[in-house]
């Protein structure tokens, strides 16, 4: 049975996380403003200087030590660090929200659209927070907290579902396996899409020869492109696993592993689009810029799958709960 006190506590934790994320987002925006203007003013002579400095830092400098182009002190990272610390708090709040929701209904909280969306938001924050522990990812903070806030906002406003028990077809260990990996790989694709768009924006600005401050604070476009690829090669096997696990589950629940149900069609379409991205990147004669658009298209398909397919297309997967 549903414990309403815990369910309410879960709602409060999710709201708290959203408030914290808003603070973090503003701090990260401040960080970009500060480091961006510095990066620009430092490279009055040539854009290349800023690029190579940040760029080779990204490539984790060779043994030959980097000599900074000028002796000017590095721009303050205070805002970024504050943003990151608040993001960690928001991450914990969201994890708590999910745990409370799970406790309130004594099951894995992955049973309807609201719960999927919150889980995807949580994984996005966890991936980003863990990543930022190991590498300097302060410049990315704004572009992670913003989409996460949008996801949580949509979850709260449009997809909110009261805590309750599962329908029998969802009551399976495969729910936990399939959906948690799916939401994790969606989280990676959200970050991947943010990176892809940043790369495309920076690449275009560099071609025009006019890099605005906030873009100057980012790594060079080739290294942005490499990071984009790097996150997708983690996301793609996870999505492949999602597809396989979903088929195993469908086989158990419905007696066929594949039935071209709208949700299955879109899972497949997303998989093929990301496969095309990885292919395009390996195809000589395809500029990474063109290939990266395919990664953006893949994220677009995830969005369609999540919003339109879940709510408007008739199929077996009617779990939206709304």
């Amino acid at each position: 049975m549903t414990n309403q006190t815990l369910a309410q506590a879960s709602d409060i934790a999710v709201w708290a996380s959203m408030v914290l994320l808003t603070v973090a987002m503003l701090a990260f925006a401040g960080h970009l403003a500060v480091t961006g203007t510095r990066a620009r003013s430092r490279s009055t002579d040539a854009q290349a200087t800023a690029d190579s400095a940040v760029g080779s830092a990204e490539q984790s400098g060779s043994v030959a030590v980097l000599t900074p182009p000028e002796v000017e002190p590095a721009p303050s990272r205070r805002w970024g660090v504050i943003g990151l610390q608040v993001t960690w708090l928001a991450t914990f709040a969201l994890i708590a929200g999910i745990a409370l929701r799970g406790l309130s209904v004594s099951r894995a909280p992955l049973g309807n659209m609201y719960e999927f969306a919150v889980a995807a938001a949580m994984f996005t924050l966890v991936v980003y927070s863990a990543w930022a522990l190991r590498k300097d990812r302060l410049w990315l903070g704004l572009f992670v907290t913003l989409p996460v806030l949008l996801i949580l906002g949509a979850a709260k406003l449009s997809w909110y579902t009261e805590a309750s028990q599962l329908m029998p077809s969802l009551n399976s260990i495969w729910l936990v396996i399939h959906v948690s990996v799916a939401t994790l790989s969606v989280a990676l694709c959200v970050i991947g899409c943010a990176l892809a768009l940043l790369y495309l924006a920076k690449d275009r600005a560099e071609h025009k020869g006019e890099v605005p401050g906030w873009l100057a604070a980012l790594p060079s476009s080739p290294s942005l492109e490499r990071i984009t690829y790097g996150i997708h090669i983690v996301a793609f096997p996870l999505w492949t696993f999602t597809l396989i696990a979903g088929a195993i589950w469908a086989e158990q629940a419905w007696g066929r592993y594949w039935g071209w149900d709208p949700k299955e069609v879109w899972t497949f379409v997303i998989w093929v689009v990301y496969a095309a991205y990885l292919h395009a990147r390996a195809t000589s004669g395809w500029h990474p810029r063109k290939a990266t658009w395919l990664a953006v298209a893949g994220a677009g398909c995830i969005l369609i799958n999540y919003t339109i397919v879940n709510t408007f297309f008739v199929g077996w997967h009617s779990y939206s709960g709304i």
Partner: protein
Amino acid sequence: MTQTKRGPAHEPITQPRLGLVGWLRWMWRQLTSMRTALMLLMLLAVAAVPGSIWPQRSVDPPRVNEFIRNNPTLGEWLDRFGFFDVYSSPWFAAIYLLLMVSLIGCIIPRAGVHWRAMRALPPRAPRNLTRLEAHATTELSADPEVVLAATRAVLSRRRLRIRRPEEGREREVASEGGYLKETGNLVFHISLLAVIVSVAVGHLWGWRAEVILPEGETFTSQAGRYDTLQTGPWVDEGSIDPFSLRIDRLDVEFETDAGGAQFGAPRLFEATATTTAEPGAPEQERVFGVNNPLHFGGTSVYLLGNGYATVTSVTDGEGTSLGTFTTPFLPQDDNYASTGAIKIPAADPQLGFYGVFLPTLRFADAGPVSDFPGLVDPALLLGVYEGTLFPGGRPQSVYTLDTAQMEQLVTEEDELSRLLLRPGDTMELPGDRGTIVFEDVIRWGGLVVRHDPGRIPVLISSIVLLGGLITMLTVKRRRVFVRVTRPGEGGGGPGERHTGLTIAGLAKGSDPNLQDYLDRIVEDIETAVATKDTA
């Protein structure tokens, strides 16, 4: 490297003539190019989408008919181009068949190249190592021979294959590793083919059948006993496993706690059954349900639907029993308002009842409705018909009444006769035609029975596919070159650290960690040299 030669501008461009073989070869090369594979992949993604927008015959044929009825013109055109059968349409097949051919044409030569590459030696070190994108230099306090030995040891510990030393190149080491990347790539693409072949096997030799089984009745699996049976082209109907199954009890529960859309949602759905694997085999009691199918050899039984069946008995005007009937009613909405037909062929003239069963009756403005899917206030509302039940002996659905040659009975007040019965009620039929007794409500289970010989091969190929994928994306194919310079040669003074070492790396594809990797190798070499010194 290939070099493109350009003739002088005035020379006319001569196209080499391609014979038939030339053309075929050109087409084959185009089809198996990475570019075409990419186009076909993108085309496949686009082509799969219409199947999620319009209803599909393979999934839900009634919805297709409904769509065509509501949109006659659009429906006809869509149908003409196969948009209601996307996944068996010629254009969809064309895309994935071309992709398969492209894949085969890609795998075979690559497998050959990889086979040779695995047995070949790594190439020699380039002249100027510091020209390579990733490189590092350091100086060590040990003799060149010691450094070289340490380098070899470190590289082979990292599973890199080392080129044999050559005359005049004694002080350099060339090595290569990560051949597993290409192996993973080939395994991945081959398993992709294996998945497609396994799916085809399941399609050709598989079958799927449905039957509605009320509690207490025994079902024996035979081609003729199923309500529907779809077989693959190469299925022998005699080979269907002859198991039998009786549902002793169906447990169904619905949400009563949560409000909103969740109220009344199904929560538990489980059957307790007595089964025999084949005639004469011992009986077994087994529980099955959603996400928990029963297996009989290669055949699986899934509990996918449920509903209510009424038990009614009818007597004629003289009070003679015309039989007791267990009649499944088909749910029409989430609250299990269900329609069904009770047919009494033994009556003279024949009688038929058609109407709705409502598990929780409520009289709304528009008429009686069901408020909840559980049995709170069950009621049966029937119209009574008289005439010929099976005109012309045509097959008909058990859930509806063919009223072409039947007439609805009227009461003495000249109104259409409608019966409202609750369990236990007995009602007189108009005109002394007898009585109907609503004895009981039981449940029925909707079973799907499936035999798919491609199931396990698909599973195994998918797991291998995932393994190949992870391997190809994580392993890096790298070449590492090291050159050691003698004291003095590299400009090193007579200091402590006098032997120069230059290391450089080349990676296939994107490899942001290559520099890190080289730096770690250098550290390893330094440690190895240092420990050798102290030893």
